[in-house]
């Protein structure tokens, strides 16, 4: 169906159907249910097909957004996915977890006067449609180049590099430390935001393209980078993620019932502890849960706690609502489900019982002062405002730093003061010849799509190197 001539009829942004909060707070099924084909086409018609699409500039991997949306308009859903695949190997993931509101949708021209086009929902629709109804055709690959690339880490960054380079004709092997691929897509993001089956199917797509996947391979322990070069790899990409959980270093932090968000989410998401005892890995099912932090990981933790039976699930954050780093959509979903938000509050110590189990958290109220070096207003404790919150599970979601396992055992790899790998922002090249890096191990904890953007740049640079040299 072509766009009608003359004045466009005004179509409202198509709402995304969702599970009701009181139902979904106790199950692990996806919250957004996906647009129907009719709703998707209606939404696609809203796109103005701008001659200078700002949405594409807003996308870290420059997906041809008007292009794929036009195909959806015309009912050519498979073509839409193919158009997305030209720039993004993981549309089912991005359509679900990208912060579109601060990327493509945030700069959508229609969004200036009306609600922006629901680009994320449309991307998700195309990818899901292809997965369910597609014939499974693969995009064409370039002739074999005879070059071998090792990708360390099978998170979004590594998967993007693998997808790009396999299509360019190189041999690619991904090395993953865990027993399942996906990185943060599988251990960090819960089932109700990103079903793992989707991640495995995206990975399977890469395997069908010829990418080799070796799980249970801890690069830096089982094999070193220099050994990979000796084995014949011509280039190596490091996408190992941030992966070192931050703790607060306050008294009582080692009481049982206090864990990092990484541990809590890895148990629930990767080890499927939410299905205990069907799966053997246990998880603490707190009734009175506190999550410290207010990023996306904190939202994921607090919402998981509800689904695991918490009667009360609180977010405790030392700054105010304005400074909350999580996506507005995630905060909204959390509030709908009953997560309580305690702003301007910071913990001073944890209180345990005679068996060393946490039973309370002592906190102080905060007020905001001048910005600190992160640019956010600095929280200042209010003297004498101590109070205690009862709890039986505390999840610490205050960020993650650079895991030193690989970086400290690799010669010639320059790191910054905080242990992140120094890499050229345009090419991803590190100080070590033949080695690139991208994603959280370079930038610190960020997002899936930024990691993918870094992977895209590095893949381009690696391809140039393999073709023309360093």
């Amino acid at each position, binding site marked *: 169906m072509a766009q009608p001539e003359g004045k466009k009829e005004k179509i409202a942004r198509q709402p995304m159907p969702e599970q009701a909060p009181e139902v979904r707070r106790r199950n692990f099924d996806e919250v957004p249910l996906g647009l129907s084909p009719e709703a998707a086409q209606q939404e696609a018609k809203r796109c103005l097909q701008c001659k200078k699409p700002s949405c594409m500039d807003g996308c870290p991997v420059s997906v041809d957004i008007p292009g794929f949306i036009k195909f959806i308009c015309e009912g050519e859903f498979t073509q839409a996915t193919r158009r997305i695949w030209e720039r993004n190997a993981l549309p089912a993931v991005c359509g679900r977890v990208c912060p579109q509101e601060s990327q493509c949708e945030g700069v959508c021209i229609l969004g200036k006067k009306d609600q922006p086009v629901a680009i994320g929902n449309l991307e998700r629709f195309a990818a899901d449609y292809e997965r369910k109804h597609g014939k499974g055709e693969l995009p064409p690959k370039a002739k074999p180049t005879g070059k071998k690339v090792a990708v360390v880490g099978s998170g979004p960054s590594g998967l993007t590099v693998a997808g790009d380079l396999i299509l360019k004709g190189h041999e690619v092997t991904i090395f993953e430390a865990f027993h399942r691929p996906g990185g943060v897509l599988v251990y960090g993001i819960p089932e109700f935001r990103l079903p793992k089956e989707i991640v495995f199917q995206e990975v399977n797509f890469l395997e069908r393209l010829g990418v080799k996947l070796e799980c249970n391979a801890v690069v830096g*322990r089982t094999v070193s980078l220099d050994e990979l070069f000796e084995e014949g790899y011509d280039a190596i990409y490091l996408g190992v993620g941030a992966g070192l959980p931050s703790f607060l270093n306050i008294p009582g932090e080692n009481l049982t019932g206090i864990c990092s968000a990484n541990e809590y989410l890895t148990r629930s998401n990767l080890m499927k502890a939410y299905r205990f005892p069907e799966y053997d890995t246990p998880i603490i099912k707190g009734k009175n849960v506190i999550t410290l932090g207010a990023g996306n990981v904190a939202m994921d933790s607090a919402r998981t706690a509800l689904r695991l039976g918490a009667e009360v699930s609180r977010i405790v954050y030392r700054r105010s609502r304005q400074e909350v780093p999580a996506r507005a959509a995630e905060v909204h979903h959390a509030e709908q489900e009953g997560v309580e938000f305690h702003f301007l509050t910071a913990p001073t110590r944890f209180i345990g019982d005679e068996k060393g189990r946490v039973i309370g958290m002592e906190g102080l109220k905060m007020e905001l002062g001048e910005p600190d070096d992160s640019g956010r207003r600095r929280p200042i404790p209010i003297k004498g405002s101590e109070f205690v919150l009862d709890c039986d599970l505390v999840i610490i979601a205050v960020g993650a730093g650079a895991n030193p396992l690989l970086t400290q055992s690799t010669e010639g790899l320059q790191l910054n003061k905080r242990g992140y790998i120094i890499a050229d922002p345009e090419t991803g090249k590190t100080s070590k010849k033949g080695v690139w890096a991208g994603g959280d191990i370079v930038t610190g904890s960020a997002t899936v799509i930024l990691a993918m953007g870094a992977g895209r740049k590095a893949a381009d640079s690696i391809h140039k190197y393999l073709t023309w040299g360093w």
Partner: protein
Amino acid sequence: MFKIVRREEMAEGTVILNEIEAPLIAKKAKPGQFVILKANETGERIPLTMADTDLQKGTITVIYMVVGKSTAIFKSLKVGDGYMDIIGPLGKPTHLEKVGNVVCVGGGTGVAVLHPITRALKEVGNHVTCIIGARNKGLLILEDQMKAASHELIVCTDDGSYGRKGFVTEALKDVLERSDIQLAVAIGPVPMMKFVSKLTKEYNVKTIVSLNPIMVDGTGMCGGCRVSVGGQTKFACVEGPEFDGHQVDYDELMQRLQAYAEQEKQCYADHQCRMNPV
């Protein structure tokens, strides 16, 4: 799949040895390091320190006591079966140096972990005295191996059914009294390591222990294995598993080991019910 090529039962069937094909791990593994194993799709990831490695055969050996569902499932694996996932070698290897006189103390399955370390300490030129203990004769393991790995072996049983009657700490006290010891290594149940360290502190003998906290990933990304050493929090999987025995907060470790006790008991009881239906 990581295939089991040899299997032995010890200590009246409570302790199992698995020699497993894992050539890449065998190639790199050093004494003191561990692996994380997962038997099947629904299984837990659990750490076991390697009791031995064979570079030629490309195998690693683990020796474990059956204490819950995961180890019970491991016990049910036969030669030819395998573990779905194993990663390693993890942790920092034992620091091996010629210091003079060394005493190695092992209790229970800690003896299995102690074996490669004892052997390596002897190989670098230390004079090694080894003390191993168990509740009774039937539960002793690796006596011959420990004899070969050391210059002198003292065997203790709590009930006196074999060797010297009493705890390993009593035998250790004698050794500390009669010899000038430069280094002690203690590996076994947490209370044992705690009391050995308490004793060696009186004699000012540097002591290394190998800790066994609960772990999930084993690569330092979750912090589940955190232990307090000298008042600081350390991740046992990347900074350990060996630490200065005089600095470890053993009481905290014992509490943290109970974090999932209820769920573990429930799981194990259900598993035993299923395995032995009435």
